């Protein structure tokens, strides 16, 4: 491979795979925004919590038995769902009539809470995360796609399509959109606003868990706050980029953001502009919000 390809193609491909994780986290963010106009700042940390549980179950620490990998992953996903339900019941529901900004501060509180709990459970340093699968799918010179990377792309694609279908085809999906648009009218036709919200948060918890387990897997290690630091902002940017209410938009936005970030980080030297990936993300987010607030695929303004 020539130099050009190594400088462009290699980071672009790895960026795209990384972007799929952003998209996966972004899916949960879009879901919660679409259903309740909520930005969930704890989304990444909810995933991280599930990833911790997976790692604990995998290694068999504390009261948890040593489980096989698939069981550990399943256990992590269940934790994610329960966590979503808990957050909805304890934090979001009491704030139903509060301004959305208050709810956002509360989700930031949930982040800090989970961060502290993870600190209690794991100690300050990083610990190894569960890798679902090892080995490479494709290697060619500097270019390398792992099996895990392949799974991430596949899972994101399937979930993006499934969730889009859920909103356009099912009664529950329609009801969730209805709640977000006119809660009063939704109550009046006999839909339980509480039940739809609980359902949404359960799904968001599951999506977060899947993203957390996969991302910590590619990362190899997991530590409190690590996932939030790594992926929350890119995931938000991806969600906004794709149009905050468009589910496939999170997919496209995630991949685009992943590639941009990887290219910037690998091509702009650190001594010229440190944190160039973050700066470009900030610029991109600002530009999208100022120029086209509905995002690339979004319809609403």
């Amino acid at each position: 491979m020539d130099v050009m390809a190594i400088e462009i193609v290699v980071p672009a491909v790895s960026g795209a795979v990384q972007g799929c994780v952003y998209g996966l986290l972004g899916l949960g963010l879009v879901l919660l925004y679409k259903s309740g106009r909520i930005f969930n700042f704890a989304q990444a940390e909810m995933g991280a919590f599930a990833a911790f549980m997976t790692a604990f179950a995998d290694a068999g620490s504390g009261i948890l038995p040593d489980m096989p990998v698939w069981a550990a992953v399943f256990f992590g996903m269940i934790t994610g769902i329960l966590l979503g339900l808990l957050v909805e019941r304890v934090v979001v529901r009491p704030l139903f009539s509060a301004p959305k900004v208050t709810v956002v501060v509360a989700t930031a509180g949930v982040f800090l809470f989970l961060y502290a709990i993870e600190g209690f459970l794991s100690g300050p340093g990083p610990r190894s995360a569960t890798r679902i699968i090892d080995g490479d799918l494709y290697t060619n010179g500097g270019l390398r796609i792992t099996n895990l990377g392949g799974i991430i792309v596949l899972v994101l694609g399937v979930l993006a399509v499934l969730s889009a279908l859920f909103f356009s085809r099912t009664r529950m999906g329609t009801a969730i959109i209805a709640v977000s648009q006119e809660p009063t009218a939704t109550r009046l036709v006999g839909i339980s606003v509480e039940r739809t919200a609980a359902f949404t948060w359960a799904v968001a918890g599951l999506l977060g868990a899947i993203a957390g387990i996969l991302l910590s897997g590619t990362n190899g290690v997991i530590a409190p706050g690590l996932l939030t630091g790594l992926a929350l902002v890119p995931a938000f940017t991806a969600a906004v980029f794709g149009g905050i209410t468009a589910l496939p938009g999170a997919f496209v936005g995630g991949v685009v953001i992943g590639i941009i970030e990887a290219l910037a980080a690998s091509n702009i030297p650190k001594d010229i502009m440190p944190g160039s990936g973050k700066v470009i993300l900030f610029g991109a987010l600002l530009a999208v919000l100022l120029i086209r607030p509905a995002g690339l695929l979004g319809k609403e303004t």
Partner: protein
Amino acid sequence: MSMLEVDGLRTGYGSLPVLQGISFSVEEGQTAVIFGLNGAGKTTTVNCLAGLLPVWGGEIRFDGKKVSGKDAQGIVKAGISLSPEGRRVWPGLSVMKNLELGAWSRKDRNKIDETVQMVFGYFPRLDERKSQLAGTLSGGEQQMLAIGRAIMSKPRLLMIDEASLGLSPKLAQTVFQVVSQINDDGTTVVIVEQNVGVLPYADQALIMEKGTITFDGRGEELEKSGELRRTYLGDAAAAEH
């Protein structure tokens, strides 16, 4: 026994009382109209009947059974439906989805389709626009959709809040006529209105002022009373006399 009996109903927002023990009843098959100026407590009354506001005191009976204390879901199941003030259709959903969600409390798919056809019978305009997003409809069409959605749960008592708000007089008349038709087809109707044009369709008329009912009588009685028209409806023509 009346179909709807409201007995000493008290309610309000937060800790501020609005309704101070109002009582009235509506007979089965009739059309009752609640008039009153802005802030008189009309919307509060129907919102409370629909289970959106808590009952502080008094009782609401529907078909002789107590329904006060039920939430909105329970009220819909009991057979009372409200088309709320400001229409509140779901702007991002199609007309068809709006109607289908209106039938959330019912399960039988075929019967729901039948009701959809019935709504389209009342409002042919909605049939033409059934795949359009509700937010792109005109004000009148949204009002039709809101009423249509309220019928979708097959209520025995239909309440409509501000049926004519923001509509042209002609369009308001059309809406009133369809409501009268719905009434003729066997549904009891309660309308909250500020428009005099609804009077010809009213069997019973109520006037509210400051959280109390100040008039309860037949529609014709109210119509003949020029004094009431002048005071409450700001009727320019009647003011001369």
